[in-house]
């Protein structure tokens, strides 16, 4: 609730103005049938000339114009308010998302964040507009309409009043039922989509095993199920219109019938009956509108809740930091243990390297290699122990100050749909010659220069118009461009052939002497040259030292060497 107040702050006047106009517009519309009845029953029978009729016709016209203007202007105000609120909410949500901690991000998951940013803010926008436009109008029409009819003829009004609740109940039941049925349909259609996706990716296997007919048959079941759900939903929801129309028309018939007795009793006049049929239409349409608003609000408020969940996520606080230590190595891990949601990823890790040294990290998938980087860069905080840079607990650094030290290439790192230069600069406002140097060191100059537009060439989304090796070199250039204190390459040589890999290593040694390098790799050949190599297995250290030392002492290292160098070859 306080959030609603926050986002509508400064818009109260606008909103009030809109509501007022909407009310005036809607009321004006309600007067039309009343005037009409008056004309038919009172003015026409008595008048001797046309002028009184034209006068009252003029009044009706004024009402119609007022209704039109009031509604149009109010709708525009509503759109403006909805626009401003949505814009603010969306930007807040995006920025909150970027500043979430990695743990929070894992918890919510990226796809969910994406859908909150796109469809949920869209639903919110729709709801905000609709509630202002219809949410005010419909109740006014219903309540105002009922009051009007009661002043005209209470007995006839009762006929009308009897139909409204029935209709309301039917509409609400049907829309609730609809939600259930359409969810079922959605689920069935998800299964179908999955099947198509499965068979698309397995097309070679299916053809090789001559399973085409079998797959066709198995799709048939899924298809039948989707069709059955569609039919059920369609037939159930299809009853809405005929039913509503029937109620509306039967109600009008009842008005005429009852009206006959009222006229006979002298309590009502013919014009009033005609006016009643108009009120009937107005009120019942408003009821239907309310059912639509009902669906819209339930959708919108579910979305608002999902957005609110993110916005109200607390800032993560960290445990008390350790004291500085002057005797620690430049980068040091002391008895560090860490787990993602309980499952231990690293256990009791201790090691240290000096400034300017190169550290290689080796191990199978899931051995905890990348987690080392995540802790060092403080994407996560260690559960136990302390990670230090320059003797200081990483938790004592300002986040910005800490991250400025790094240049990093992650596994499956990210390239934007932008130019090569923009991707390397990455919004840091780097100097052109720094970028050029980085391109050279990363061995990316060859292919970039051969491009017609050089480093201004554009990448498609995910950089699909470049090969894996080329993308890798752009990413390395990005990491090098700001001359980082610490360079992290997570599995970044795997897309490079052995030759380029070796050249890159030489360039690093020659030009980045003071830079501390952490290199995570699957290939033993990429880390053998490092000053220190850390061998991980299932989150534990099984070896730490130089290639030479490890070949003597570390069984796992020797095994990897055997299986890769003696058993592997040329292909990458």
């Amino acid at each position: 609730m306080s959030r609603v107040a926050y986002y509508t702050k400064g818009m109260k006047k606008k909103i009030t103005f809109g509501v007022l106009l909407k009310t005036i517009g809607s009321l004006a519309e309600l007067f039309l049938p009343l005037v009409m009845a008056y004309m038919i029953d009172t003015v026409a029978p008595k008048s001797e000339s046309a002028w009184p009729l034209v006068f009252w016709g003029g009044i009706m016209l004024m009402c119609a114009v007022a209704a039109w203007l009031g509604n149009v202007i109010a709708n525009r105000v509503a759109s403006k308010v909805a626009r401003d609120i949505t814009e603010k909410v969306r930007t807040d949500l995006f920025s909150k998302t970027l500043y979430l901690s990695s743990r929070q991000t894992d918890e919510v998951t990226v796809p969910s964040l994406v859908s909150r940013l796109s469809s949920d803010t869209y639903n919110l926008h729709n709801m905000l507009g609709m509630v202002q436009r219809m949410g005010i109008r419909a109740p006014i029409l219903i309540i105002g309409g009922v009051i009007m009819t009661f002043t005209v003829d209470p007995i006839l009004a009762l006929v009308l009043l009897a139909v409204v609740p029935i209709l309301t109940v039917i509409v609400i039941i049907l829309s609730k039922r609809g939600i259930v049925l359409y969810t079922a349909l959605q689920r069935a259609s998800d299964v179908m989509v999955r099947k198509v996706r499965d068979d698309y990716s397995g097309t070679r296997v299916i053809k090789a095993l001559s399973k085409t007919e079998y797959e066709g048959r198995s799709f048939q079941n899924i298809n039948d199920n989707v069709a059955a759900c569609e039919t059920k939903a369609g037939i159930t929801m299809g009853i809405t219109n005929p039913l509503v129309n029937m109620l509306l028309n039967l109600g009008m018939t009842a008005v005429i019938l009852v009206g006959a007795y009222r006229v006979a009793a002298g309590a009502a006049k013919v014009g009033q009956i005609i006016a009643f049929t108009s009120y009937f239409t107005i009120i019942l349409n408003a009821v239907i509108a309310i059912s639509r608003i009902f669906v819209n609000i339930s959708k919108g408020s579910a979305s608002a809740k999902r957005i609110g969940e993110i916005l109200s996520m607390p800032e993560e606080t960290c445990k008390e930091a350790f004291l500085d230590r002057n005797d620690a190595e430049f980068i040091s891990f002391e008895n560090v243990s860490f787990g993602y949601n309980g499952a231990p990823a690293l256990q009791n890790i201790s090691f240290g390297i000096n400034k300017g040294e190169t550290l290689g990290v080796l191990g199978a998938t899931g051995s905890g290699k990348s987690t080392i980087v995540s802790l060092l860069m403080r994407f996560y905080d260690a559960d136990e122990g302390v990670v230090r840079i320059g003797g200081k607990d990483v938790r004592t650094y300002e986040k910005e100050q800490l991250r400025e030290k790094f240049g990093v290439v992650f596994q499956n790192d990210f390239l934007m749909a932008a130019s090569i230069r923009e991707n390397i600069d990455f919004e840091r406002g780097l100097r052109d010659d720094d970028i050029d140097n980085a391109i050279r060191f990363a061995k990316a100059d060859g292919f970039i220069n051969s491009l017609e537009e050089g480093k201004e060439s554009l990448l498609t989304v995910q950089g699909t118009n470049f090969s894996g090796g080329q993308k890798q070199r752009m990413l390395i250039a990005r990491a090098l461009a700001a001359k980082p204190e610490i360079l992290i390459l997570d599995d970044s040589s795997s897309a490079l052939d052995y030759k380029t890999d070796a050249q890159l290593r030489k360039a690093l040694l020659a030009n980045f002497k003071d830079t501390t390098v952490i290199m995570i790799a699957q290939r033993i050949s990429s880390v053998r040259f490092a000053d220190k190599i850390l061998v991980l297995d299932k989150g534990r250290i099984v070896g730490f030292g130089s290639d030479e030392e490890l070949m003597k002492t570390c069984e796992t290292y020797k095994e990897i060497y055997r299986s890769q160098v003696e058993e592997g070859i040329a292909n990458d």
Partner: protein
Amino acid sequence: MTEKKISPEATKKQNRRAAAARLTGYFLKYKWSVIIAFVLMVGSNLFALIGPWLSGEAIDAIAKTDGIDFALVIRLCVLMGLFYIGSSALSYLLSVLMIRLSRNIVRSMRQDLFEKILVLPVGYLDRIQAGDLINRISYDIDTINASLSNDLLQAATGVITVIGAFIGMVAASPILLGVFAITIPLSVLITIKRSKTVRPLFRQRSAKLAQLNGFSEEMLTGLHTIRAYGREEQMIEKFQEKNTAAVEAYYTADYYASMIGPSVNFVNNLGTVLISTAGCLLFLVGKISPGGINSFLLYSRKFSGPINEFANIMSEIQSAMAAAERVFRLLDEEPEIKDWENAKDLENPLGEVEFDHVRFGYDKDVVVIGDLSFNAQPGQTVAIVGPTGAGKTTIVNLLMRFYDPQSGVIRLDGKDIREYTRKSLRAAFTMVLQDTWLFEGTIFENIAYGREGATEEDVRKAAHAANVGDFIESLPEGYQTKITDGGSGLSKGQKQLFTIARAMLSEAHLLILDEATSNVDTRTELLIRDAMAKLMQGKTCFVIAHRLSTIRNADLILVVKDGDIAERGRHEELLEKNGFYSELYRAQFE
């Protein structure tokens, strides 16, 4: 313009027309349903149109100055009630019928489409994305479905209602119709405004929104990197820009769109004003009864409804036609080339394979294999090595006839492989590919996929031969464990063992193997290596090789470089040559 020049606009129209004609074809399969639907629709609408006339009569009966004829009023009201109930009942029956009808049509289209996907050449599927296929089979077909079951009906109903209401108004009072006619141009104007101004704005609005959503999705995939480089603020700024553009486009569309509703109401109200004023004037001179005014008022409302909806329905039908066109285009794609007319089934092949001056490129102009000849005897192993993207999988594609060579011949047991039926040729091969394909289903189903009618015992044996039996049996549900989402809970190594197990079930004499250098722990690596060795026993093997042991033991090594065979021979021979192979071999020791 001369007749011969066909503008893109004209071909587009032609395509639309063709699509419409084909859709009609689907309808004609259900002639009787269509005829019944038509009768129901006419009936329901006529019933609904009788109502206002009856109510006018009833009001006149009430308005009689010489006392109310209650018998007449009651009779008319009962009739009205019956007609209205009848109309609603018919209209519900109609929509049930249409839903069933379109269900049948759509279901068979979906089935056709899916079966088409299965027989499309691999080369075609390689070029398009899964998302495209999914769009065809779900969104496009949904659009067609909605249009079939709803829009057509609405359009037809609209026509009948407009005509009927017009007749009703003429019958009630031609003079009043003349006055009411003033509002018709206004209705038309709103309709035009809607399609000319508002619709493009809505398209723009979706485009901007799509841009924004694309941007946020892109940025969120790069969340880690953005945080690592501390670029949050800059990205928020960029987002803000796109966000403003999106909400602005939304607003602009709304600005005009939110006029439509009140304007339609205004025209209706204006109609009421005109009818009641003019009606009263006519009443004054005795040209119309109150009942007549009432009937006219009700007809006039019926009349403007469809006119206001017209633009909407048309555009929906248009987008359904566009969707149908896309669906038909996919249905019309050439399937894999038919087998030769006198193609024979390949039975009990020995496994002798020969490439004879084979030339091939995926694009006619880009040659991937220039001129490849080699011979593999039954039981021999051919290892294919080379850097990524050099065309190693092309040889596999040609062997399995996923593609055919541009020139040259591939022979199996001395005969051109095109002389065999594709089905029997493929059945002669077992394949283990690098992208381990597992589908939604149990482990049993995934392994048994290798051979029709495989028993539980067969699957168990195959799993154990592939060194994965113990693992499967250690799972709580064993072979009945569900594999979801392409095997997301399984490690890469396990997935590989599953596909080896699947291959173990096959009794083929030829094997295609893509050894993956996945980063698995040493124990799993040994299991995989052992399982693959077992699989290769006694078969003619084509291996995209990564393991030195495989390569050393190969009878022939083909070294592929830049889409051509750079070197060939046995391991020792190639090392002696001191060429590209030895360079590759040595690079990792540098």
